[in-house]
């Protein structure tokens, strides 16, 4: 059960960091709504951020072993 809590905490931290970084990446000047461009940018940014997170995970585990 604790293991699950760790996993949940991990996803929740990813959602928080992803939201903050993609909000900053895509929404330079906040307007009255998210238009199609904004939504596309956020969705693409979210995929890219997850890729970056996977790369750092792998590289970090390799580096931490040595």
């Amino acid at each position: 059960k604790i293991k699950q809590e760790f996993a949940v905490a991990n996803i929740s931290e990813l959602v928080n960091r992803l939201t903050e970084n993609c909000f900053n990446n895509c929404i330079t000047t906040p307007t009255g709504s998210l238009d199609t461009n904004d939504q596309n940018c956020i969705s693409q940014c979210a995929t890219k951020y997850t890729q970056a997170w996977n790369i750092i995970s792998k590289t970090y585990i390799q580096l931490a072993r040595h």
Partner: protein
Amino acid sequence: QELSQWAQKETEKAQLQQNVHRFTDMCWKKCITEPATSGSLTSQEESCITNCLQRFFDTNSMVVQLVQRKAL
């Protein structure tokens, strides 16, 4: 039990206040880029700050949905 309910409410209130500080900081940095030359927000700055929080919540909702649909 009433005491523990009261304690929980106070904790929630403190958390809410902490979020207000965090979001004010974030939206200030996004919307206010020039040194102050007057003692009140311009209408542009004011709407930027309101929109900033709303669009941040929209972005958060989109990200949560993408995670739930395992689209990432």
